């Protein structure tokens, strides 16, 4: 039977495993990379403080996500988060096969969604969580997850369409320059 690790040890392991996941979610939901870093720090500190109350009857990643969701809710409550000029430094693109411009554009499109739509899309389609896990984390019903995701995808589809059309006009309507990403630039 595994003994419960000390909080410091546990949090270190959780940080190694999930810091990037937490960062991504916070970044896409908050639309701010530096705030996302703050969220990473706060989530793991809260996990450290709450470690003794963690019963372990669910995935620790889901537990961390729950902590993060509540913290982000607090952030939204305490201050209406203004859209800021986002910075895109500190990206590790070692495993990313698309260009930085494409990532930026994808984030911009995603950022146009309302927060609940962003949340559910990130969890389901970027973090690959199940409907059940997503519902658990967001505190929603599974049917709400499904319908909200449907709306998110529908809106993203429309926005991608607009983006594609705009690009088409920008480059003279030559759709042939588009690739599997959003677009390809010279």
């Amino acid at each position: 039977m595994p003994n419960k690790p000390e909080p410091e040890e546990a949090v270190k392991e959780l940080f190694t495993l999930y810091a990037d996941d937490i960062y991504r979610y916070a970044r896409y939901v908050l639309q701010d990379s530096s705030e996302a870093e703050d969220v990473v720090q706060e989530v793991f500190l809260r996990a450290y403080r709450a470690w003794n109350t963690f019963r372990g009857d669910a995935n620790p990643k889901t537990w961390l996500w729950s902590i993060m969701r509540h913290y982000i809710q607090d952030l939204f409550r305490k201050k209406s988060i203004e859209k800021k000029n986002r910075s895109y430094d500190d990206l590790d693109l070692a495993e990313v096969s698309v260009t930085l411009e494409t990532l930026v554009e994808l984030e911009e499109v995603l950022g146009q969604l309302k927060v609940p739509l962003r949340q559910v899309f990130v969890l389901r389609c970027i973090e690959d969580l199940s409907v059940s896990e997503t519902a658990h984390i967001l505190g929603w019903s599974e049917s709400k997850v499904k319908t909200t995701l449907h709306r998110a995808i529908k809106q993203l589809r429309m926005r991608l369409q607009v983006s594609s059309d705009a690009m088409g006009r920008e480059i003279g309507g030559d759709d042939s320059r588009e690739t599997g990403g959003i677009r390809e630039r010279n």
Partner: protein
Amino acid sequence: MKRVESENVTERFSPLGHVKLSQERKDAIWQQIQSQMITENEHPSAQDRRQTRQLRTLRHHPANRRWPALGRAVIGLSGAAGLVLAGVVGVTQVHKYEEANRQDNLGSSKDKGGTGEKGRGTKQVGPGTPAPSTLEGVQMFQNGHGWITLGGTLFHTSDDGRHWSGVAASRGITPNEFQVAVLNGDSAIVARYAPVSNARTSISIQSTSDGGRTWVKKNGPTIDVNHPEVPKTLQFVDSDHGWLATDQMDLGMGGTSPGALYRTEDGGIHWTRVAQSAQNGPLGFLWIQFADSSTGFTVVGKQKLGTDAGVIDAKTMYVSRTNNGGVTWRPVNMHLPTAGIYGYTFYPPEVFGRHGVMVVLNRSTNQQTLMSYQTQDAGSTWQVVGAKTALNPIDTSVAFTFSSVYHGWLDFSGQLWDTTDGGRTWHAITHAIPRGVQSMWFANSSSGWVITNQNTLWHSADGGKTWKQTSP
């Protein structure tokens, strides 16, 4: 115009799933986290549960209150409150005054098997190493006899601390696996986790009346072998009436959650499971503090249902009271400020008859304030009577001891204070007090003891003005 299919939407955004923190930023964030963890570890006021265990057992035993008559005579505040203080439960909570009249849904013994925690989605485990108890405490008596727990070992002295005998280890009581209730300078009761086999667990109860030289084994409470529990808090208000709060062990990540509350009315010969946290209801017994055989207090918080982990919703924490020995619990009436506050730490109250004192640390973004509450109706309602803001917002460690409802000492914000009016006003004594005080005890107005989070023992013979390190 091209049509973007739904499936392609997901595919198109998949590159976002590869975005990561740079190693440099990750290292920087981890360093910040690590630094904060060390800080909180050194200042236990930030770690509620740990502090709860550290400060509880020895320091706040109602049977060992000293000089209540002196306190009343000196202050002459008839009807003013008693004092309380002590342990901690890390609690970010906003107590809604309106909520205070509802009945807690802490399951009573009648709930057993019904709404109790067991059987809920928690994974079951066999016995194993319990969560470490970091019980640290000191309790001295005017005849020069006393007890300390230091580094997980119980020590006894019969010469005012000049010599100490380590009594726990020699009796096979494994450090960090026991809780101690002190009855007097020579009598104590110990509850310890006692695994019987890989499939069975139990809690062993032993008592001594000769300073730990000999021990008498008593019956421990009957534990459901499928739901192992470990002792968390042990308290006796006299030689007959005692309570044992337990943590329930779980598998998976190996966490613990509040288990149940047991009561004995015959000195530990028989134990009854009188209450337990309801499966989907509030979690209680994070600490317990009984004033007499019927009146007691605990901190309760609602679980974050629908999420994982037994994490208590910080906004729902409140102090609850029983008037029937722990069978049923009801929130007390107390008003807490909410403006700008992001968290509270409740310390177990001490109630002397109808009067009592409780201390609450509230935290806002810019400052931390220790608030004193008094009761005049045996703890049903509490009124705030004083507040002290931390001089150093970083150093907010808290330790205190009260000898009566009026007279108390407080280590707060790196300074030693005392009060003679139940926390309405605090008078600075000195800055020269050891750092990281976790447990404090004044046997009289001149002789004081503290134990620090570095497992060091200090003594003052001049009312706390100067301190000298000693060792058991």
